[in-house]
C-alpha cells in the first residue's frame, strides 16, 4: 500500500507581497470612502453657508427696526394707517358707483342720463374724499421730517463715533415730529364733523341691493370715525426710546406681511407674502397632479394592456425631462393667454371673479407645475402599487371581488403610505421649483385678496424661489437685502428637508406594511 506523500499545506503562509498590497488596498478603500463623504460634506456645507450668509440678517434687521422707531417713522405710520383706511373707504365708494352705472347700462339707460342721475352721488363721493385732506397733508409733512432724521441717524451710525461726524439734533427733530399729535387731533375733529355731516345728507342709490351695500358702507364710515381717536392715544403713548426687543427681528421676518425693498421710506423683510404665494401655487399644482398622477399610476399598473404600458410609462418619464424653463416659456406664450381667454368666455360669466385681469397668476403657474409633479408622483406611486405582493391581489380575487374592488379596497390601501410619500416628494419638487413660478406666477409681492374666495387663486403672487432668483443678481453683497434672500433660502431648505423626512418615514412604514 503506497503511503500518501505528505501534501503541501492548503493555505500558503502569508507572503510579504500580500501584506504590501493590503496597504494599497487600504488606500484605495480610503479614497472611495472619501468620495462617499462628499455627499455628507455638501449637505453640511449647504447648511453652513446658508447660515453664514443669512444669519447676519437678524442683527441688521434689528438695527433696521430700531432706526424705524428712533427716527419716528413708526410714529408717522400710525397716522398713515388712518389716512389709508380713509382712502380705502373712498375706493369702496367709487366701486359702488361703477356697479350702479353698469347696472343702469344693462337696464338700457343712456350713459349721459345715468351720469346725470348719479351726479348727487358723485358730489357726495368727492366731498367724502376731500375730508381726508388734513390727514394726508399731515402725513406728507411728517414723512419728510422723519425721513430726514432717519437719513441723519443712518449717516451717523455709518460714520461710527468718529469725531468729525456732525451731531444730530435728534431731540429737536423729534419734538417737531411729536407736535403732530395735536395736529392729528385737530385733523380728526375736522374729519369726523365732515363725515358726520356728509352721512346725514347721503343721497340714495336707485338699486335696492346696492343701497344695502351703501348702508353697510355708511356703517363702516361711522366705525372708522369712531376709532380715529384711538390712534391719537397710540401717538401719545409712543416713545422713540422704547427698546425694540431682539425677537422682533425674527418675528418681523417670519410673520411680517410686507416684503418691500429699496424703498425711500422703510424696508420690510417679511416672508409671509412669499410663503403664501409658494403654498398657493403648490396647492393648485397638487390639486391637478395628485388625481392625475395617482390615476395614471393605477391605470398603468393595473388596467392598461401591455402595449399601452410599454408606451405610456416611458412617455411619462420622458415628460419629467422637459426643462422647467421651457415649460415656463410655454406658460408665458400659450397657457397664460389661454387661461385668460377661457375666463372671458360667456359660459363662465356666472363665476364672480371671471374674467381675470392678469394672465400670469397662481393658476397658470400651478397648472404647469402640475405637469412637473405628475411624473414624480406617477413613477413612485406606480412603484408602490407594483410592489404589493401578488398574494394580496389573488386572495381578493379568490373572495370574489372584481378588479375595481381589488384596486380600491386592497391595492390602494396596501400601498397608501407609498402613494402618500410619492405625493410628498411631488410637493417637494413643486415647492422648490424656480423657473416656472418666476416666469408664470406674475411676480407681484402681495398677499392675494382672500375676500374673493377662489378668485385669490387667479391673482399674481411672488414665491420664495422666485424672489431669490429675481433679486439675488442685483443686491449688494453683505447688505441686509442680500442676507434676507439667504434667509429665504434657508427657510426653503428647511421646508424641503422636512418634506423629505416625512416622505422617507412613510416609505419605511410602507415597506413594513407589505412585509
Amino acid at each position, binding site marked *: 500500500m503506497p503511503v500518501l506523500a505528505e501534501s503541501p499545506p492548503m493555505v500558503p503562509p502569508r507572503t510579504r507581497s500580500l501584506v504590501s498590497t493590503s496597504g494599497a488596498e487600504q488606500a484605495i478603500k480610503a479614497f472611495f470612502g472619501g468620495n462617499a463623504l462628499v455627499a455628507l460634506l455638501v449637505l453640511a456645507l449647504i447648511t453652513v453657508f446658508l447660515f453664514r450668509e443669512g444669519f447676519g440678517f437678524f442683527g441688521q434687521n434689528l438695527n433696521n427696526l430700531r432706526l424705524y422707531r428712533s427716527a419716528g417713522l413708526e410714529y408717522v405710520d400710525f397716522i398713515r394707517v388712518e389716512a389709508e383706511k380713509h382712502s380705502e373707504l373712498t375706493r369702496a365708494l367709487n366701486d359702488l358707483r361703477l356697479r350702479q352705472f353698469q347696472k343702469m347700462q344693462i337696464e338700457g339707460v343712456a350713459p349721459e342720463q345715468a351720469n346725470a342721475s348719479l351726479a348727487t352721488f358723485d358730489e357726495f363721493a368727492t366731498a367724502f374724499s376731500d375730508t381726508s385732506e388734513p390727514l394726508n397733508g399731515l402725513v406728507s409733512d411728517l414723512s419728510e421730517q422723519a425721513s430726514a432724521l432717519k437719513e441723519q441717524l443712518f449717516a451717523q451710525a455709518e460714520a461710527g463715533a468718529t469725531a468729525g461726524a456732525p451731531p444730530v439734533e435728534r431731540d429737536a427733530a423729534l419734538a417737531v415730529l411729536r407736535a403732530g399729535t395735536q395736529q392729528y387731533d385737530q385733523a380728526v375733529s375736522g374729519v369726523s364733523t365732515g363725515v358726520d355731516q356728509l352721512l346725514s345728507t347721503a343721497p340714495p342709490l336707485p338699486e335696492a341691493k346696492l343701497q344695502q351695500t351703501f348702508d353697510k358702507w355708511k356703517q363702516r364710515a361711522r366705525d372708522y370715525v369712531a376709532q380715529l381717536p384711538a390712534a391719537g392715544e397710540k401717538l401719545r403713548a409712543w416713545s422713540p426710546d422704547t427698546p425694540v426687543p431682539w425677537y422682533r427681528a425674527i418675528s418681523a421676518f417670519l410673520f411680517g406681511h410686507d416684503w418691500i425693498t429699496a424703498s425711500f421710506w422703510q424696508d420690510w423683510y417679511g416672508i409671509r407674502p412669499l410663503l403664501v404665494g409658494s403654498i398657493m401655487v403648490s396647492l393648485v399644482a397638487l390639486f391637478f397632479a395628485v388625481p392625475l398622477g395617482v390615476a395614471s399610476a393605477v391605470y398603468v399598473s393595473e388596467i392598461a394592456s401591455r402595449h399601452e404600458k410599454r408606451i405610456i410609462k416611458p412617455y411619462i418619464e420622458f415628460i419629467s*425631462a422637459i426643462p422647467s424653463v421651457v415649460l415656463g416659456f410655454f406658460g408665458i406664450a400659450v397657457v397664460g393667454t389661454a387661461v385668460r381667454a377661457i375666463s372671458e368666455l360667456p359660459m363662465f360669466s356666472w363665476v364672480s371673479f371671471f374674467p381675470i385681469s392678469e394672465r400670469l397668476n397662481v393658476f397658470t403657474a400651478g397648472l404647469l407645475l402640475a405637469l412637473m409633479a405628475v411624473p414624480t408622483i406617477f413613477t413612485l406611486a406606480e412603484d408602490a402599487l407594483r410592489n404589493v405582493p401578488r398574494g394580496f391581489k389573488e386572495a381578493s380575487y379568490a373572495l370574489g371581488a372584481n378588479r375595481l374592488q381589488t384596486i380600491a379596497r386592497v391595492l390602494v390601501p396596501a400601498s397608501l403610505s407609498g402613494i402618500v410619500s410619492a405625493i410628498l416628494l411631488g410637493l417637494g419638487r413643486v415647492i422648490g421649483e424656480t423657473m416656472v413660478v418666476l416666469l408664470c406666477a406674475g411676480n407681484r409681492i402681495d398677499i392675494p385678496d382672500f375676500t374673493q374666495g377662489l378668485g385669490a387663486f387667479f391673482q399674481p403672487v411672488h414665491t420664495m424661489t422666485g424672489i431669490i432668483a429675481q433679486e439675488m443678481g442685483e443686491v449688494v453683497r453683505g447688505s441686509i437685502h442680500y442676507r434676507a434672500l439667504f434667509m429665504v433660502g434657508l427657510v426653503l431648505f428647511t421646508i424641503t428637508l422636512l418634506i423629505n423626512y416625512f416622505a422617507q418615514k412613510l416609505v419605511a412604514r410602507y415597506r413594513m406594511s407589505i412585509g
Partner: protein
Amino acid sequence: MTSVRPHLRRSRIIERIAFWAFRIATYIVLAFATYIFLDIGIKGARTVFTTTAPFVNTTFLFDRPQTLYVFEHEGQKMTLGDTDFRAWKETHGEPAVDPTTVAYSAGGIWPCIVGTALLVVGSMVLALFVGISSAIYLSEYSRNGRFIKLVRIAILNLAGVPSIVFGLFGFGLFVIFFGWNVSLLAGWFTLGLMILPAIITASEESLRAVPQGLREGSLALGATKWQTIRKNVLPYALPGILTSSILGIARVAGETAPIMFTAAYAMRDEMPWQVSRASDFVFQGVMALPYHIYVVSSKIPQNEYTERVQYGAAFVFLALVMLIALTSIVLREKSRSRLSW
C-alpha cells in the same frame, strides 16, 4: 342559461366607468405634454429649419445673438440685425425715422449652445467621478454602520434640495468664498454637486445588480478586492451606470436656477475660447441656453419680432434635452430585456 344577476351587472358597469375615468386621466396628461411638444416643435421648426438647402437655418444655430433693428425705408419695412444694420447705414446713411430696437432678437444662439455643452461636460465628468467612487464604496466596501447610515440619509436629503438652494450655495461658496466669480468652474461644481445624489443612487443600483458569484469567484482565485472590483464588477456595471447617468445629463442641461448667479451671463460677445490666457478659461462666465431662454422670454416683449428667437431657442433646447432623455430611456428598455444573469 342564467342571466347575470343584477347587482353583478351593476358593479360591472361601475367598474367599466371607473376604468374609463382612469384611462381619461392618463390620456389628459399625455395630451397636455404632446400639445407642448407640438406647439414648440411646429413654431420652433419655422426658425430652425429652412425650405432650401441645407434645410437648417445656419445663421440661427451658428451666429451670435444680436439686437434687431426695425424701421421703414422707402415704404418697405426693414428688419436687420446689428451687423447688417451697420453695413446698411454705410450705404444708405441714417434711416429717416429712429429704428425700433429689440434686444437678442436677431442673429442666433451659438454661444449659448457652446456654453451649455461646456457646462454639461464639465459637471458630468465631476459628478460621474465622485458619484461612481462613492457608489463603489457604498456597495463594495461599506458595512452597515452608523457612518454609512448617515451618508445614505445625506444622499437622500441632498436629492430633495431645491435647485435654487444649490444656486445660493454655489454663489456663497464658489463665487464669493473661493473668489471664483461668475465662472465655468463655479457652474461645474454647483451643477455637479446637484446631480451627485442621482448618479450615486443609479450607480449603486447597477453595481448591486452584478451577481455576487462574480465577486466571490474572483476573490477565490486570489484576486484582491480592488482587482475584483476593477476586473469583475465595474466592467459589467458600467453600461448600466452610464445609461442611467444620461438622464442626469438631461437634468444638468435643463436646469437654470443653479447657474443663474454662478456661471451664466445674459450677454457676452466673446466665445469661450477667446481668452487671453489659457488659465482664464475656467474662470470665465458663459452664455447658456436655458438662461438665454429665460432672458428672452421675460426681458423682451412677446411680438412678431421676438417669436423667432423665443421659439427657436426653446425648440433647440427642448430637442437637445429630449434627445438625451430618449437615448437614456431607449437604452434602458433595451438593457432590461437583454440583461438577465
